[in-house]
C-alpha cells in the first residue's frame, strides 16, 4: 500500500483521501436497504409527548397540516408525516394541507396515497373531510394575513377549484383551527409560531435534525406542545402506532451511518496523535534548534 513506503499506516490515517469517506458512507447506507436486518428501537420522551397530543384529537377536529419543506426534507421526515396523517385519519379529523415551498406542492398527493386504505375505510371525501390548498404561504405577510382573515388570502385549492362549500367555510381566523401539525426544514415555521401558536392555536412540529436545537426552546417554553425529531422520531412514532413504514425500515442504514462517522473520527484522531502531532513537535524542535 502506498502508505507503507512513506510514513506508515498512521500517516495514511491522518491524511487519507476524503473520497474513501464518501464511498464507504454511501455503501453502508444503501447496503441495509437491499438486505434489511431489522433493528430494535427505543422511544424518547419527546416522541411520547407528540404522540399524546395526537391522541387527544377528536372526530371532526379541523387540522392545519402545513408542509414547510423542500422535497428533499420530505425524504427525511416522510415517516413522521405519514404516521401523523394515519393517526388523524383514524381519529376522523378533517385535514387541510397548506404548503410553503413550491417543491412541496406534490407532497400531499404522496401522503394521501400512503394512507389511501385508511381513508377509504373511513369514507374520506374531498372537500368534506380533506382539502389540498397548495402554495399559500410564500412569505410572512401571507401567513399573518391568513391567520387573521383566512378567506381574504385563500380562495381556491391547488387545482384552482373554489373552496366555498368545503369544511373550510368554518374557518375565519387562527382561533378556528383545533391543531396545527407542521412538518418543517425551517422556511415559514417561525412565522406560523408567531402568528398562530403565540395567540393560542395548539401546534406540534416534526422537524429535520438541523432544526432540533432551534425548535426545542419553543417546546420548553410551552409555545408549541410537541416536537418530533427527524427520521428517528418518525420511526419511533411508527413503532408507537404499531404501523411500520419508511422510518423503521431505514433504521439499519441509519445505525451504520452513525457508526461509520464514529469510526472515521477515531481513525482521524489516531492518525492525528500518532503522526501529525509528532510532525508538529519535530518541526517545532528543529525550528528552536535553528532559531
Amino acid at each position, binding site marked *: 500500500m502506498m502508505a507503507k513506503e512513506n510514513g506508515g499506516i498512521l500517516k495514511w490515517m491522518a491524511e487519507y483521501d476524503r473520497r474513501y469517506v464518501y464511498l464507504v458512507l454511501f455503501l453502508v447506507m444503501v447496503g441495509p436497504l437491499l438486505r434489511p436486518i431489522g433493528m430494535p428501537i427505543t422511544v424518547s420522551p419527546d416522541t411520547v409527548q407528540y404522540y399524546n397530543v395526537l391522541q387527544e384529537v377528536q372526530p371532526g377536529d379541523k387540522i392545519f397540516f402545513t408542509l414547510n419543506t423542500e422535497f428533499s426534507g420530505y425524504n427525511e421526515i416522510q415517516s413522521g408525516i405519514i404516521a401523523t396523517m394515519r393517526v388523524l385519519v383514524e381519529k376522523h379529523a378533517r385535514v387541510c394541507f397548506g404548503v410553503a415551498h413550491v417543491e412541496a406542492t406534490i407532497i400531499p398527493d404522496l401522503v394521501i396515497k400512503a394512507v389511501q386504505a385508511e381513508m377509504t375505510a373511513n369514507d374520506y371525501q374531498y372537500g368534506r373531510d380533506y382539502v389540498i390548498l397548495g402554495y399559500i404561504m410564500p412569505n410572512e405577510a401571507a401567513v399573518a394575513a391568513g391567520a387573521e382573515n383566512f378567506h381574504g388570502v385563500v380562495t381556491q385549492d391547488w387545482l384552482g377549484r373554489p373552496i366555498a362549500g368545503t369544511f373550510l367555510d368554518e374557518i375565519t381566523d387562527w382561533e378556528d383551527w383545533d391543531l396545527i401539525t407542521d412538518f418543517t426544514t425551517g422556511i415559514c415555521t417561525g412565522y406560523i409560531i408567531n402568528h398562530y401558536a403565540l395567540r393560542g392555536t395548539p401546534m406540534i412540529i416534526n422537524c429535520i435534525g*438541523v*432544526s432540533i436545537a*432551534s425548535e426545542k426552546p419553543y417546546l420548553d417554553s410551552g409555545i408549541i406542545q410537541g416536537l418530533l425529531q427527524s427520521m428517528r422520531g418518525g420511526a419511533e412514532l411508527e413503532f408507537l402506532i404499531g404501523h411500520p413504514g419508511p422510518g423503521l425500515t431505514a433504521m439499519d442504514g441509519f445505525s451504520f451511518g452513525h457508526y461509520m462517522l464514529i469510526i472515521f473520527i477515531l481513525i482521524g484522531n489516531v492518525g492525528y496523535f500518532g503522526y501529525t502531532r509528532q510532525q508538529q513537535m519535530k518541526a517545532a524542535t528543529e525550528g528552536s534548534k535553528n532559531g
Partner: protein
Amino acid sequence: MAALVYYYIKTKKVVHIRRVPGLDAIEEAVGRSAEMGKPVICSFGIGGFTYWTLAGLAILSHVAHLTAKTGSRLIVPTGGGDQALIVRPVAEEIVKTAYTMEGVEDQYTPDDLPFYSGQQYAYIGGYVGVMQRVRPGSVIMTGSHASEAMNIAETSNTVGAITITSGSYISNVAALACASDYILIGEEAPAAGAYLSDDPAQRASIRVQDLFKWLAIAVMILGLAARSLGNDLMLRLLAT
C-alpha cells in the same frame, strides 16, 4: 428599545466596541493570501437586507480595503436567494468605494462580483466552481448563509484555502465550528461589522443589544431568586 437606540444615536458619544478576535484572523488570512499571490474570496450571504447580511457587507468592506492595499484579487460571489438581487448593487458600491478610497480604482473589476442566480444551489454550483478553478488563498464567508455554508466550507478546505466563516443559527455554527479554520460565532459577525464601521447607529445598536442581554440576565436571576422564595411576581409580570 426604540427610545434607547434613538438616545444612543443622538448622544454623539462614540460607543466603545471591543475588537472581535475574528478580525485578526481575517487580516492574517488576507495577508497570507497576498504572500502566496492567491486571490481572496469573500461573500456576505444569500438573504435580503437582514441583520446578518448587513454584518456581512461591513466585513466585505473591510476585506475590500485590505485586498486593495495588498493588491490581491478579490472575488465576491453574489446571488443564492430571491432577495439577493436587491443587495447586489450595494455590494458593488461597497467594493468600488473601498478601491477608490485606497487609490487603486483601476483594479476594481465588476466581473469579480458574479451573480450566480437567485437559486441557493445554483449559487453553490458557481461558488464551488470558482473555488476549484482559482484555488484561493482564503475564503471569508460571513453574513446570511444557510445550509450551503457547509458545502462551501468543506470545498474551501479541499482547495487548501484558509476558511473563515460565521453562522447565524446554532446548527450551522456547530457544523462550521468543525469545518472552518476560524469561526465568528453568532453575533460576533454583526459586532465585527459595527467595530469596523464609522456608523454611530450600528455602534449604538450593539450597545443596546448588550443592555438588553444584561436585562435578560438580571430578570432571570431576580425571577429565580423570587421563585425560590415562593414568589412568582416576576413570572406574572412577564406574562402580562
